[in-house]
């Protein structure tokens, strides 16, 4: 009965907070017809993209610094120039792009995105700036077996999740099994290991793969498509009319001068050549180093905050004050009962509507709040494991509650829970990788960038695996050292 009451209370709190958060953008919408003015006032245009889709957008290594380049970026730069503002690029996974737009994290999304009717329901689109056409990649040694779209009937075909290619294949190839994956690099790997017979892709992206991998060939699709659902357009928040109008004007100028074919695609090709000139992993070590750095920062900061929060929650849970106890139990139950991935998305996009937090901070907050709940339970177990006699002996000496906790109970609890706490820290290093979905450049995120840039599927994964192991193994050594120092018997 009590638990049911508690459940209702938690749900009620959620509904209320969600309503508050939802209420916020509605206000913003009503006032968005100043979308253009607002951007010009701020002096910067924020573009969200998923830079693992050459030649549209990808990362390149320039004088040791990685930056996002590609056809879309060149167009965006021209637009920013026309609006007299600075361009700011935010990277995240393709799935997160439209959410970023709706929650005000970005002013526009450019990611070779097709303005499908479904997407039009939630966002506004510019005019179409590029029509690439649709291709399939197949293995060269099977090219005679699969010479055209028709031959793919009843076969396994891959495409990026949430993309037009995915839906097209599903709808138009009879008897096909469409396998969706997040990353282009994963799809290619699946193709080359014959788990798929073909991968659907935009023509320029497919051509880029063929250029860089002699074992692949591209075949044209025979989808009968109107420009509206196959071309690429820029997405905006609904109601950004003034901004869309201004951007369309820029696009018109770009088209008139044929800048895309004459300049932008050629530039992108040059960058891609730089990327693939040397695909040895040593050449990309700065990418991995940055990833390791961010992974360690996130794990370390979240670990410290998690312990502080964990102690606080554990003491609240053991407190005689009912409200504290209830709050702590509710928090722990709720956080443990929802996936970390959802929490990361909620902090970045949900809470982000009220306070605009950068991705790294959002990631650290979400991971800290999450690990605090787990650490709280570990610490509570530790406090319970210290015998009652210790507490009584300390009380009989006249020590205050806080001194008893600080000098007697917690040090002994810490020793008892050290192995469990060590487990939590190690999983923190590994599980913090989930922040890559909001574009934090941790090791997993960097790994995917390297895979996209070098067209190499397995080697970067192996490197990341070794790096993770070195980090966790190092941490284990450090933890063991401290455990040894706490042994007094």
């Amino acid at each position, binding site marked *: 009965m009590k638990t049911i009451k508690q459940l209702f209370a938690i749900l009620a709190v959620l509904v209320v907070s969600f309503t508050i958060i939802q209420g916020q953008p509605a206000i913003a919408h009503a006032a968005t017809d100043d979308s253009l003015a607002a951007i010009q006032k701020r002096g910067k245009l924020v573009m969200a993209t998923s830079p693992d889709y050459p030649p549209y957008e990808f990362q390149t290594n320039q004088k040791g610094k990685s930056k996002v380049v590609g056809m879309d970026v060149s167009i965006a730069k021209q637009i920013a120039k026309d609006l007299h503002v600075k361009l700011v690029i935010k990277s995240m996974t393709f799935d997160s792009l439209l959410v970023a737009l709706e929650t005000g994290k970005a002013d526009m999304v450019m990611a070779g995105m097709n303005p499908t009717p479904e997407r039009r329901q939630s966002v506004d689109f510019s005019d179409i700036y590029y029509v690439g056409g649709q291709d399939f990649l197949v293995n060269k040694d099977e090219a005679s077996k699969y010479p055209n779209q028709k031959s793919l009937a009843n076969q396994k075909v891959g495409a990026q999740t949430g993309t037009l290619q995915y839906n097209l294949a599903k709808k138009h190839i009879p008897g096909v099994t469409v396998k969706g994956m997040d990353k282009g690099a994963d799809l290619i790997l699946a193709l080359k290991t014959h788990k798929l017979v073909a991968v659907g892709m935009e023509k320029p992206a497919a051509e880029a793969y063929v250029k860089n991998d002699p074992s692949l060939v591209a075949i044209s699709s025979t989808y009968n498509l109107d420009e509206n659902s196959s071309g690429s357009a820029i997405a905006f928040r609904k109601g950004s009319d003034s901004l869309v109008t201004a951007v369309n004007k820029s696009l018109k100028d770009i088209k008139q001068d044929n800048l895309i074919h004459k300049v932008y695609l050629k530039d992108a090709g040059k960058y891609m050549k730089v990327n693939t000139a040397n695909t040895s992993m040593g050449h990309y070590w700065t990418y991995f180093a940055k990833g390791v750095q961010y992974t360690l920062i996130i794990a370390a900061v979240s670990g410290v905050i998690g312990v502080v929060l964990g102690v606080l929650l554990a003491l609240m849970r053991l407190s005689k004050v009912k409200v504290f106890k209830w709050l702590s139990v509710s928090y722990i139950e709720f956080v443990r009962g929802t996936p970390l991935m959802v929490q990361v998305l909620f902090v970045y996009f949900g809470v982000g509507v009220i306070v605009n937090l950068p991705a790294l901070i959002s990631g650290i907050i979400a991971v800290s709040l999450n690990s605090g709940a787990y650490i709280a339970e570990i610490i509570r177990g530790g406090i319970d494991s210290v*015998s009652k*006699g*210790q507490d*009584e*002996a*300390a*009380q*009989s*000496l*006249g*020590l*205050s*509650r806080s*001194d008893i906790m600080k*000098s*007697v109970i917690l*040090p*002994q609890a810490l*020793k008892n829970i050290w192995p469990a706490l060590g487990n939590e820290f190690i999983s923190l290093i590994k599980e913090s990788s989930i922040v890559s979905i909001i574009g934090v450049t941790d090791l997993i995120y960097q790994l995917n960038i390297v895979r996209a840039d070098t067209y190499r599927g397995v080697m970067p994964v192996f490197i990341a695996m070794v790096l993770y192991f070195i980090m966790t193994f190092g941490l284990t050594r450090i933890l063991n050292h401290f455990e040894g120092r*706490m042994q*007094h*018997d």
Partner: protein
Amino acid sequence: MTKQAVIEINNVAKQYGKTDVLKDINETVRDGQVICLIGPSGAGKSTLLRCLNRLENPTSGEIKFDGQDITVLSEKELGSIRENMGMVFQSFNLFPNMTVLENLKLAPIKVKHWDDSAAEKVAYDLLERVGLTEKAQAYPASLSGGQQQRVAIARALAMNPKVMLFDEPTSALDPEMVGEVLSVMRELADDGMTMVVVTHEMGFAKQVADEVWFMADGYIQERGTAEELFDHPKTERAKDFIGKIINS
């Protein structure tokens, strides 16, 4: 001339749920007295002792320490009472995360706010008194049971208490170690410390106790000198109990 009352127990009762553990206890402990509390297990001896420094809360009645009713004090106010009442437990309860010296220094530094060197001096004096100076830097886990209990006594004494409470201090010890602990307690009694001891050590009671309280079924059934109680028990319960421990 009767000495001044240090602890007065008036109409104290204690219930756990529906079970009466203590029923209307009325006793006085005077300055310098050594009281031994004996009785069958489940009689309520430990509960009564633990009520004296409020490790247990009596359900009703009052307990006065130096004339002040401690049953009405808050958790915070209790600190000043407890620092004047040392307690020694059956299971020693030394802090395993600290050395012997740190065990002794903790309360004087945290509660009395002594500086480290003053606390250390007192600690060494006490360790000498219980004969364990050479174990100052050892951790409790490396000590024998008898040594641990002597350290526990020294730790309680470090606060310079007015009264010492002992809750079956020798029951968890191997037989060959009982002697060393009792001799420390005997010296303490000889120095005039007021003590309340829950024990089954008849020899010790005969040697040092000013009064022996025989407790059964939540009552103090009988009270007297050790000789009176052990040699000429009046109540049937006491006769039965003393017969059993003599023959065991």
